[in-house]
């Protein structure tokens, strides 16, 4: 059963404690009343559906951010981590984080400043789940670009 042990380890790499914790108790969960920016992310494959709300002032800085919706552990944890990471960054800084996170998840190389986000690394072995992890980040990009459209993972 060494086999099963490896697999357990792999699964536990995907579902790390930090991920499970954020999935169970997502941070910044809720709705902003007067967001300056917002976007929705839909993953038609598994029905993940997230809404991001941001308040960005004239200083081009994220003053408030939260999200609501439902999704799998990976997408919810990723969104929760996103809100923690992006809060109080400038738009430019946020775009840079989006870039490095999505690159890291899809090509596996980029360095990420916020170490917590490495918790998402386990996803890279599960190509079908990468879309779950990137969903919130795509939605954030859409929100920042004021493309008030829906982002999808297709």
């Amino acid at each position, binding site marked *: 059963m060494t*086999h099963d042990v490896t*697999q*357990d380890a*792999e*699964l*536990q790499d*995907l*579902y790390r404690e930090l991920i*499970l914790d954020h999935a169970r108790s997502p941070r910044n969960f809720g709705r902003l009343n007067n967001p300056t920016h917002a976007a929705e992310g839909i993953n038609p*494959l*598994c*029905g*993940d*559906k997230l809404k991001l709300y941001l308040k960005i002032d004239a200083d081009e800085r994220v003053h408030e951010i939260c999200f609501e919706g*439902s*999704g*799998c*552990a*990976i997408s*919810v944890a990723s969104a929760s981590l996103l809100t923690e990471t992006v809060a109080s960054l400038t738009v430019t800084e946020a775009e840079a984080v989006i870039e490095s996170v999505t690159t890291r998840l899809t090509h596996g190389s980029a360095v990420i400043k916020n170490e917590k986000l490495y918790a998402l690394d386990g996803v890279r072995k*599960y190509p*079908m*789940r990468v879309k*779950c992890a990137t969903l919130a980040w795509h939605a954030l990009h859409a929100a920042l670009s004021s493309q008030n459209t829906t982002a999808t993972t297709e």
Partner: protein
Amino acid sequence: MNRPQQSSDFGTAIANCRNDFPALKQSVNGHPLTYLDSAASAQQPTVVIDTVARYQREDHANVHRGVHTLSGRATDAYEGARDKLCKFVNATSRTEIVLTSGTTEAINLVAQSFCRPRFGPGDQILITHLEHHSNIVPWQIVCEQTGAELVVAPIDDAGQIELEALFEMMQGKVRLLAIGHVSNALGTINPLRQIIEQAHQHDIPVLVDGAQGVPHLRVDVQELGCDFYAFSAHKMFGPTGSGVLFGREALLEEMPPYQGGGDMILEVSFDGTIFNELPHKFEAGTPNISGVIGHGAAVDYLQAIGMQDIHDHETALHDYMVSELGKIDGIRLIGTAENQASVQSFMLNDIHPHDLGTILDQQGVAIRTGHHCAMPVMERLGLPGTARASLALYNNSADIDRLTEALEKARRIFG
């Protein structure tokens, strides 16, 4: 509940049939594959794969239009498959068997050729809350085009159509009832004979979405009394890209062609075109010859085993699955209709189905997770989606045991 003893309980044909499916002999992620996703698409027996390959190696040519030997062989094999399909659903005549690319195209054909020219504001198309998107969106589109109204019969918490409400809605200006045979999301088998009888009393023609009927049940369109019956080859162990619209001849006769092109015409001139006879009127262009021939081989395969044996086997296995799932802490069955095919949705605690799917896959267990192309069902039940294990003739109790083991592991991981 005891494990059903395949070899003793049922004919040997079905007991041994798992060996006919090469895909089931592989390992996935280091475990023997446990394929519980046949409702999405079924695996093919060797005889279907080989029939298609042999056709390609020996007999392929375009059909209908050729005088040479290969074209004759291809045409005979293709039209021979139509005959098999005709018998399979017990249609009155081969002219009632329109070959399509699948259930979805068959339903769109009826929406566009039957409804669109004759429906208008004030008319209603009646469906149920249990339908697959392929039996919803084509009607939404044609309603948008014609001004007709889509009305939807409710379901109860077990996933059964509320018959009284359905019958009540037939009082209105319903001009077509479109209803599934078996729900792909919840497994519910609808009481079609009763429903169709009632519809016909109101002169409402009935289309049955049979995509999930054909793999599990003996289908007899004359006994059902339906006016249209749509199904796909790939759900019944045949190839993708092939399907059937059964339609009563009198209705098909009245309908204009759906697509234009080669083969569906008798004569083309710029002054006007004479369409071909049934069923060719509805079959434009080169058909999916190899797919249809493979579909015919799947029919032969199913009939050699016997739909009754298949049904008995699946029922016993489904009972076993329900009882074993029941032993897992935190399992909640979704879809508990009295009359249910071997398709079972469930939730495990508050683990999102997608996470369950990954954890099970890691253990070689393939289930489907999500909305199963039936978002309205999910919304009705207040769920983001479900995990679904669907059984086919080749599954056995060991598959169920591996499913439950894998679920136990998921429970441990999510603690």
